[in-house]
């Protein structure tokens, strides 16, 4: 009858697999360019992981420093040899392993620091937040490379672990800003007030309610962060303050050929190309994830 009030339909049960992470991944798999990027990245990562199995030579072996040095690409040495007669292809494969590993580990450090700092600042609010943000601004004013140069020159002969830590310590600034912003926004959200009305402790609110909302910026920051670290580590190694020689990293290989850039062109070309592809694919994936999450909100 017209004039009757409306009856409400029952709420349908929640569909499975609707976690933020799952949604992001699903959207990723839908795009053509992101699928291609995943494949290429997968190949590079696999090559790095399997380096000990598939590298044709020992990356540090110097078999014949007179006859086999400085050879251009050939069938026996597809990426040529370096001034120490080491096979460049093997070094590039091991370099992939090391550079990717450093990238991932350093990013994990950055993420942890960034989330912690941002969450504390955002949740604490007031003077604590203001001070923390000023300090953050100061760190943001120092270009990351400069900061690393300043630190690394003071510590000659760093271990790779320490390098990872320093890279991590310098990469959390941007993310902490984003996290702080999210925390601030969510702090005043109604569901948090509701939780507090129910007697939930501060820590519980932080962990159970706020952190799940941070998944999206964290995942995006992680993907793009790894790309940044890879480029940064290469640059530092190129300057001689990154991965210590004679370990193979992409930057190191380029540095080895730096003195004779024109004649040993293969030492610059191949590691660089691989770096570009790795970073490109990471960028494509990171941005696709960011688009996917933004469209959701």
């Amino acid at each position, binding site marked *: *009858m*017209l004039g*009757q009030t409306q*009856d409400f*339909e029952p709420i349908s049960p929640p569909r499975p697999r609707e976690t933020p992470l799952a949604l992001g991944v699903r959207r990723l798999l839908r795009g053509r360019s992101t699928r291609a990027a995943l494949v290429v990245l997968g190949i590079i990562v696999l090559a790095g992981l399997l380096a000990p199995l598939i590298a044709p030579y020992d990356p540090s072996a110097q078999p014949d420093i007179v006859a086999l040095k400085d050879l251009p690409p050939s069938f026996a040495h597809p990426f040529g040899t370096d001034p120490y007669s080491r096979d460049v292809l093997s070094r590039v494969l091991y370099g992939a392993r090391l550079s990717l590993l450093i990238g991932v580990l350093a990013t994990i450090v950055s993420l942890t620091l960034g989330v912690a700092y941002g969450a504390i600042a955002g949740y604490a609010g007031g003077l604590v937040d203001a001070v923390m943000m000023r300090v953050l601004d100061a760190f943001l004013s120092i270009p990351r490379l400069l900061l690393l140069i300043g630190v690394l020159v003071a510590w000659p002969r760093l271990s790779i672990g320490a390098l990872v830590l320093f890279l991590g310590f310098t990469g959390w600034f941007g993310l902490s800003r984003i996290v702080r912003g999210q925390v601030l926004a969510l702090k005043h959200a109604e569901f948090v007030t509701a939780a507090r009305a129910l007697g939930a402790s501060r820590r519980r609110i932080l962990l159970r309610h706020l952190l799940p909302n941070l998944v999206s910026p964290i995942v995006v920051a992680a993907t793009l962060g790894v790309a940044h670290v890879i480029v940064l580590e290469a640059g530092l190694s190129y300057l001689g303050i990154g991965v210590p020689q004679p370990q193979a990293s992409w930057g190191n290989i380029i540095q080895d050929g730096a003195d004779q850039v024109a004649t040993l062109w293969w030492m610059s070309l191949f590691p660089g190309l691989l770096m570009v592809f790795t970073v490109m694919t990471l960028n494509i994936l990171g941005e696709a994830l960011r688009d996917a999450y933004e469209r959701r909100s």
Partner: protein
Amino acid sequence: MTAPLLSIHDLRTWFYTESGVARAVDGVSFDIGAGETVGIVGESGCGKSVTALSILRLIQPPGRIEAGSRIEFEGRDIVTLGDEEIRDIRGNRISMIFQEPMSALNPVFTVGDQVAEVARVHAGMSRRDAWERAVEMLALTGIPDAESRARQYPHQLSGGMRQRVLIAMALMMKPALVIADEPTTALDVTIQAQILDLLVDLQKRIGTSILMITHDLGVIAETTSRVIVMYAGEIVEQADVDELFAKPHHPYTEGLMHSMPHIGHDQERLNVIPGTVPAPTDWPHGCRFRDRCPYSWERCEQEHPPLYQVGVDHASRCHLAIEPERRNHPHPPLVVEEGVAAA
């Protein structure tokens, strides 16, 4: 009888989306005469805004005006016009006012500049002349101290004033038709009345026709002389305004009228038409209002009703036109019977 100013024949605007083809406007035909104010009323999703956008060819992909649609204006078919010709019409012969005055103005240009731009584009006026005309127009729309207001930026004006600016912009070239899409919905109630009065007044002075699109029957009653009721992409009723209010024929129109609260009547609950509009990707076979209609019967499920003539200049898309006795046997709408009932 003089030829109508605008004549729409079988307009179909469909949107090709991932979830299917949304037939937002599905066979709409009507005329607008010179100097007339015609209203289109309906709830959100009925296709009234899309109709308005179609008239000015502002539909963007994935939407498309389907072949076979015709919009005749000043001797030409808008649907098949070239880009340059359509641009010649926009803002010049037909203009449009929107719902959101907040965001419809560019924040980085002065208000005067934006109004003057119309004259520079269409009449090739110099900056100075266009500016002067813009200030005149702004004064005409009742903005006090128009000369200095014109030099201000949109964020410095109130919502009501911004809407006046947009009206001034729309009337700069004294167009033959102004389309007003919910021009007062986003404004305060007191301002609403002012803006409506302004539109009616300007129309009399300049002699334009107005196509007033709204969901508010009050606006229809105040400003229009003829009304079109739309539902689910179609016209379901058309009549002169007095006739429509006195003798609504289509059950949907009835429902709309009943849902208006009346001052002076005691009412505990608001009257509501049960159910919701079906999805435009999936219009039901037969009458599209069937599920929510208190009178529907088997014919309504099987036959899609055409527009029947039910009075002088009064058409209704309802089988009650040929079986009027069914009106004496109302029943609970099907959507309530089939759906889940609470208490």
